[in-house]
């Protein structure tokens, strides 16, 4: 199968340019409407109020990309694009509501899971799951659980990583780049187009969001990016049948997932005090910052680890089943080792204090 590299180039450059043009407009709107992030809470790192709404262009670029494909390259069109646009609109509205007047994490989670169920019945009714060691599993109706959990998981992973200048945008860019390369190799044209869109729009956003940031994507942007990343990894096609292929995206997204898992663990510990849905300042980027790294160093080190995981995902997708399993084990061990080292350094720092 021949890849339409011209389409990829057009989608990338188009989304990049549109984002670069639109972000300042929405930044201006956010200032006018006073939709800004004030550095009041302890977990906030920035010192000055920074406008939100930088993520709205992601949504506009997505709608534009879908229309571009429909109008000029209908052979790459998918039935699932419209459900993505529709549910994505609700996600953006939910994010905007959260940016303007804080929405509780519980309500957000319930809504995300409900939207995942809606998506399952509307275009994402995938009952086959790619086996990490080769072939597929027929998971049947278990997919109704897997699909919403996967989508909500990625949405939250991206949202949690949005705590530092350029972090969420950069991580999504690296994840999209890794999945793009994997999809390129396995002839997944639609997946490639969606990843190129994500790369273009996040690259355009990073122009304004890399440290020192002049605009934040806000929950509207973070939730939407997570949503698109989650759903686009679900529409991989194998010989005409959609297959849930989670192994490679799970490795690519290992850092945000790890952060989410650790956050979940901390929340479980304080659940007895009724603080499960209370945000904290213990995310990986916060802890690295507390060790004395600068914002730029933290973000770049997270990029570096994420790129390494992307490479691991590429290996997982390209080697025979047994080796893929070994690569997955290796990736898990590398992550575990990283966590142990982080705890050890934190222990040393506390001891010095």
């Amino acid at each position, binding site marked *: *199968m021949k890849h339409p590299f011209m389409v990829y180039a057009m989608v990338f450059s188009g989304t990049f340019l549109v984002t670069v043009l639109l972000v300042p407009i929405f930044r201006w*709107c956010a200032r006018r*409407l006073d*939709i800004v992030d004030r550095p009041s809470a302890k977990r906030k790192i920035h010192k000055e109020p920074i406008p939100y*709404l930088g993520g*709205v262009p992601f*949504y*506009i670029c997505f*709608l534009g990309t*879908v*229309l571009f494909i*429909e*109008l000029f390259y*209908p*052979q790459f*069109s998918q039935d699932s694009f*419209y459900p993505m*646009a*529709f549910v994505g*609109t609700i996600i*953006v*509205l939910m994010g*905007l509501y959260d940016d*303007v007047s804080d929405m509780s994490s519980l309500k957000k989670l319930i809504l995300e899971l409900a939207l995942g169920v809606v998506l399952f019945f509307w275009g994402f009714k995938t009952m*086959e799951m790619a086996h990490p060691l*080769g*072939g*597929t599993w027929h998971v049947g109706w278990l997919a109704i659980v897997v699909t919403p959990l996967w989508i909500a998981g990625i949405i939250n992973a991206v949202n949690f990583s949005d705590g530092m200048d350029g972090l969420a945008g950069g991580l999504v860019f690296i994840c999209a780049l890794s999945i793009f390369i994997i999809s390129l190799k396995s002839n997944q044209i639609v997946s490639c187009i969606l990843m190129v869109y994500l790369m273009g729009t996040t690259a355009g956003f990073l122009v304004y969001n890399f440290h020192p940031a002049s605009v934040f994507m806000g929950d509207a942007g973070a939730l939407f990016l997570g949503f698109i990343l989650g759903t686009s990894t679900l529409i991989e*096609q*194998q*010989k*005409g*049948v959609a*297959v849930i292929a989670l192994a490679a995206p799970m490795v690519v997204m290992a850092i945000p997932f790890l952060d989410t898992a650790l956050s979940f663990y901390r929340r479980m510990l304080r659940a007895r005090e009724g603080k499960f849905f209370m945000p904290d300042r213990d995310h990986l980027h916060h802890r690295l910052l507390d060790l004395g790294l600068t914002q730029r160093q933290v973000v770049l080190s997270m990029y570096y680890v994420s790129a390494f995981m992307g490479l691991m995902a590429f290996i997982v997708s390209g080697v*025979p*089943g047994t080796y893929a399993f070994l690569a997955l084990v290796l990736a898990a061990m590398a992550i575990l080792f990283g966590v142990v080292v982080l705890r050890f350094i934190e222990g040393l720092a506390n001891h010095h204090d």
Partner: protein
Amino acid sequence: MWLVIAVLFAGFNAVYWPVRAHQIQNAPDNFMSHASYLYAHGAQTQAIKRLKEGIARFHPVCPEPYQVLAEWHFKETKENLPWCMAAGYFYQALRGEGKTRSSLLTRAAEMESTELPKAIIKPEIKQPVSLLAGNLGLVWGVGETLLTLPVERQLAILSLSGGNSIDFHGRIGRTGVKSPVNILVQSGGGRAGRYCTHLLVRGREYAGNRRGFYAILIDPQSGQVTQMGMFDVWQSEEEAARMENFLKDAPTGMIGAFAVADEASVNLTSGLENALSTFGLEPRTFINSQPALFGLHYSFAALGVKGAAEDTAVQAWSPDEFDGCEGHAVTCGTLRLAEDGT
């Protein structure tokens, strides 16, 4: 700001839906509604052509396309299309249950058998035909109904299952080669799983019930099976590469018979597709608007000749599902029906 999002989404809908409706209308797998549109607007010949193309490309496993084609054809020419009517009954039977299914299958067999050449069927053909028909009967939940039918009608059902891909004069598709022996190939991909896969040469079985792609090579002079292989193309690309080498090493002129058991598309590499094309096989179906040999959970059986021109082999396939209807096991083959071999 919410208003801005609402306006953007409304604008998106205003452009998206008219374009999408046009795309859907012209999508290859939407041939039924496109043909109906053409027919309703007075383009009857074009509508029939579109319907025939769609049936040939997608082998739909629901009765409507066949019933509509039979009806339109009759209206246009005042002549019946027996195979089409038989296919209509056949798929109606697969959709039905119990006695309805049995009686419709019997009716389909009766109609299709009028299309078969009138010849004395050799005894050696009866046993393999009964074996395959009996299998289908079990898979389709009609018990031994098919075994109670005369052998010509059992043959008719087998022929219908593969979309008329059994030759009764010993020919192997359009390769120009005649087989010295009777060959029947049945694929139990998709819903039939792996328990309906057979490669019968002179009535002798060469397939098993393991998952993957079965292939045998038959000498075109002696009719002897010279090589056989089973490749779990579901499992890994290495298996696909092994099958590719198996096919590449086959001498020119060898007859190749292929059957999918359970699933063999997950690691169907382009290298393997190319190797199969050297036997005259060609991507004849469409998946996501792209030509394909077969897809996930498809049943697929084929008969070709090494070195034959592309698109000359016999191919039978059934999709996993079409328009909500489940796929089925398929049979193809070549038989020398009469005693004199005509």
